[in-house]
Structures are given as C-alpha cells and as structure tokens.
C-alpha cells in the first residue's frame, strides 16, 4: 500500500479469523461500536478506555511489540489508526497474507494506517499526514479519548 494505491478491502473470512497484526506502529487509537475510544503506544502508555472482549483479550492492543485487533470480535470494532514509526507498517492476518505500508512519502509525510469496518468487511487505508505528536493525529482522524469512569469502584 502506498500513496498511489492506498486502499485494500479484506473479505469476510480475512476480516474475522484470528488476529490482525500491525508491525512497526508506534501507537494505535481505536473506537468500538459503542464509541468507546482509547489509545496505546508500543511502550505501554495508554489513554482513554480499553475494550475488553469475552475471550479476555482487548479488542485492540499491543502484543509483543505489534498492534493487534481481535478479529473474533470484529463486530464490536468500528475503526482504528496505527501511526507508523520510521519503518514500513506490515499487516498480517490468518493464512499468512501480509501487506506493507510505506512509512513516509517523498515530501516527508508520515504513514497512518486507518482500518474501519464496513458491514462484515475491514477496509485498510494508507493515509499520509504531516509529522506530529499522537494527540494531534488522533484529533485529525476525529478520535476523542473516552474518559475512564470510576462508577464501578463503588466509591461514594
């Protein structure tokens, strides 16, 4: 994937089996169908709210240095972005299919992989943005972090 070939759409099987891994991301931000949003960096910093799933895995999270989407629960997934480091973003799915996103353009823009669900299908789109911190990029893609609620703590 690159600036001149920015979109790939997975089929229904590819969109829902196993784990979609994104290698080479410095951070990810996500939004589920309830519009719960959160973010995590490759170093473990977090913002917003995580989306747990029935299998005790987060819907989107880092795992051993790569960002992962739990495809068994793709119906809960709405969209996510993956901000590139200075290396290609490499996406892998079940069946060993893989694709790569160029990390930057000739004019110095940086890659952001935008993944959204359209009915049963995941669409992957390579976007290129001016270099900026994560918060600026979240805002550019319309992500506003959900404020963690403490209602469940039982505190009065």
């Amino acid at each position, binding site marked *: 994937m690159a600036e001149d070939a920015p979109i790939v759409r997975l089929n229904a099987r590819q969109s829902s*089996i*196993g784990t979609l891994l994104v290698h080479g991301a410095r951070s990810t931000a996500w939004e589920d169908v309830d519009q719960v949003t959160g973010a995590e960096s490759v170093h473990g910093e977090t913002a917003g709210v995580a989306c747990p799933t029935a299998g005790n*895995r987060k819907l989107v999270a880092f795992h051993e240095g790569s960002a992962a989407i739990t495809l068994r629960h793709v*119906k809960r997934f709405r969209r996510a972005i993956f901000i590139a480091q200075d290396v290609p973003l490499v996406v892998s799915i079940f069946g060993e299919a893989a694709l790569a996103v160029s990390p930057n353009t000739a004019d110095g823009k940086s890659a952001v992989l935008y993944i959204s669900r359209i009915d049963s299908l995941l669409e992957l789109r390579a976007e290129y943005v001016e270099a900026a911190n994560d918060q600026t990029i979240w805002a550019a893609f319309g992500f506003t972090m959900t404020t963690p609620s403490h209602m469940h703590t039982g505190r009065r």
Partner: protein
Amino acid sequence: MASMIPGSNAALTAENPGLRKVLVAFGWTITQSLGPQAELVPMAIMCGQDGLALSDDHLVFFNQLTTPEGSMEFVGTDDQEQIDVDLASVPEDVRKIAFVVYVDPDLRGPGNFSAVKNAYVRVADENNRELLRFDIPSGNQMQVKAMLFGELYRHSGGWKFRAIGQGYQNGLTGVATDYKLAL
C-alpha cells in the same frame, strides 16, 4: 430425540416426513481462566460431489451469515450458536453440509479444545423440537484445534445426519485444506 455416537447416522427426512427445515445448534462450556480463553466458532460448509466446498461463499459463520442462494443461514446469538438449513432449497449440486467448530486462531492463544467441556451439536425442526443430539466424547483434546462435529448428507432422495467428532490438530488450516477453502 435420538442420542448419537461417533460414526452413527440418522435418517432425518425418512424418520420425519415433511421435514423441510432444520436448526443445527451447537453448545459447550469453557473452563474459565483469568488469561486468554479459547473461543469456539461454528461454521457450516456446503460441499459438492467431490467433497470440497462449492466455493468460498458456500459457508456460513458469524461473519458470513448466508450462502449465495440463501438456503443456509447463521443465526447465532450470545447464548446459542445456530445454523438454519432449508433442506428443500439447498442447491441440487450440494451433496453434504459439514459442520465444523474451530478455536479462533488468535495468536495470544490458547488455540485448542483443552478447556472445552460438554460440547454438543443438536438438530431440531423449525419448531425447535429436538430430533437428534450428539454429545462430543470427552477426552484429552489438548492437540485439537478444530473439530468436524457432523454432517448432513443426501441419501436416497432425502437427508441423513452423521455424527463424527473428528479433531483437527492443524486447526482451521487443516479444515481449509480438506474443503479447499481460501480463508
């Protein structure tokens, strides 16, 4: 209601005249743990005379809800995973329908049946009257990553159901190879 053992078959339409539609339902319990848990996914595959899938579109599971002609439909809910088959509308070139349950191959594991208990498949009529039930025999299933629970197949102008319970150590990859599916 008939209880089945591995390898046995039941003459569904011969024993139930007028049977047009069946509900194939799956159930199991998972031994709970704090870490990642096995997540089972039922899938049904329409096969031709050669035993292979008619196409990648002739399967249903939670993210591919119907076959192209609409005779098979996934209607699972949070409480029950169910596949409806309109026997009278199944294309003539479909010789059997395989019912597979796989452990989702999430990289964070566990990807096997070791924590799965009390798995079964049951076949009911469209009023949910149970016609037969196959309880998967318990045993060490640490190596099993997918399982062919059973299959509906054509016989003498009608439909029969065979209980199988055959495990796949190579999981969904093995299922895809056996039925020539591109997953």
